[in-house]
């Protein structure tokens, strides 16, 4: 579904991503792990159009998407979350979700006056959808709260909710578990699994919580110093000496 071929990206003199090649298969939950500073987030930025690669190709369903601006990539149904959350602070959670879909009927001034029934109907559909998603990420009790009043972990959940509003085919999650309570994280993992199985959404997930990665993701790709270090099933990764050395450390030996 997603192919990354020989991608290079440097900032100033620093090579952030170095001849990186991998593929993400449709219908799978692929994990992307690696030490801090390995280039994982840069890779996300390259795939979603926030950076342009210096060299190499990125293909989504066979079409090149490298170099396209973020909004065009979003229209291809690739969505992402950010490590540092980006919510609309002075809007409620419900509003945060309802603004996501593009080209809403009510955006045209003509429609708001002469087709207000259509506007209302679409708003109702969107509201129902937003409520369903808020239920899914367990934020429903806060639907009328301003986003700025959420705790750090709750903002993470709102990020995930926002991607779901856009009916994505591929979701890139940048550390969905950081700062999220472990019990809720487990539940999130179950929910991601069912999104993948039931709605056919493909996931690429950066995460440091190994319990989550190992139980949720297959295959797992390991990056180190801008390159792909290894790829395999969670079991293979856990027993890969290079991965233990660079990333996992002693407790997994």
């Amino acid at each position, binding site marked *: 579904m997603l192919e990354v071929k020989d991608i290079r990206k440097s900032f100033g003199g*620093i090579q952030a991503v170095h001849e990186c090649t991998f593929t993400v298969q449709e219908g799978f939950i692929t994990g992307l*792990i*690696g*030490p*801090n*500073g390995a280039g994982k987030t840069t890779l996300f930025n390259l795939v979603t159009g926030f950076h342009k690669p210096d060299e190499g190709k990125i293909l989504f369903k066979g079409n090149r998407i490298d170099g396209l601006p973020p909004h065009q990539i979003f229209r291809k149904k690739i969505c992402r979350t950010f*490590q*540092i959350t980006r919510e609309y602070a002075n809007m409620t959670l419900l509003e945060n979700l309802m603004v996501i879909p593009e080209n809403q009927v009510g955006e045209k001034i003509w429609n708001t006056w002469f087709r207000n029934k259509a506007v209302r109907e679409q708003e109702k559909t969107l509201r129902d959808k937003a409520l369903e998603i808020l239920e899914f990420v367990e934020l429903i009790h*806060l639907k009328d709260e301003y986003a700025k*009043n*959420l*705790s*750090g*972990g*709750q903002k*993470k*959940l709102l990020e995930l909710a926002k991607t779901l509003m856009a009916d994505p085919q591929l979701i890139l999650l940048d*550390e969905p578990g*950081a*700062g*999220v*309570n*472990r*019990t*809720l*994280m*487990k539940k999130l993992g179950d929910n991601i699994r069912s999104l993948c199985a039931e709605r056919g959404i493909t996931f690429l997930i950066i995460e*440091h919580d*190994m*319990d989550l990665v190992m139980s949720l993701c297959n295959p797992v790709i390991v990056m180190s110093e801008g390159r792909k270090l290894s790829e395999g099933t969670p079991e293979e990764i856990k027993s890969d000496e290079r991965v233990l050395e*660079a*990333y*996992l*450390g*002693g*407790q*997994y030996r």
Partner: protein
Amino acid sequence: MSLLEVKDIIAGYGETDILNNVSIELLEKEIVSIIGPNGAGKSTLLKTIFGLLTPKKGSVKLQNDVITGLSPDRIVRKGMGYVPQVENVFPSLTVHENLEMGAFIRTDDYRDKLNEIYTLFPILLDRKTDKVGKLSGGMRQMVAMGRALMLDPKVLLLDEPTASLSPLLVGMIFEKIIDINKTGVAMMIVEQNAREALKISDRGYVLVTGRKVFEDNGKALLENEEIGKLYLGG
């Protein structure tokens, strides 16, 4: 002796109360963890203790000295350090400058203290002149902790010190926390990496929707099945 005593705190933002009658304490040389679900008020509690938020009711005492309502800069001078969850370093300054910023209010010679911090985090010495914005998450966390230590605090508050860190670094940060604690600094840690945090904690508190629902020593909390299921991920 109780080093830090938080009593019947009610605090929140605007109309909303986040903390409802929370009382906790930190004894000398202790490591205490605060755990609980998202939005329970854990970070708010640390902010209230550090004076970033004035409580509507209740008191905070540091060594029997009431510090409720004091501004953070006054509280820092009384011997408390705080490392927030995000934006805890100056990215455009170098490692060394960040540490020096921590000693901003010191008028004496703090070179020994700087050396002490470089001994604690040898990895920072190699990166002394690098801008912190270029460093990875783990090193930034060390810079933030090092900076908070520049004023010789008796109490250090850490808000999710291991969030977003690789497993290797999580282990390393917890080791550093133990090292810092051994120098006589009492620590209060908010963590979602709760299992690991409780392993190194003398005691722990479970906070849920702004109330303290449980407290015990670290080992007992780890072995408590219900707590495990509800807050530690089973």
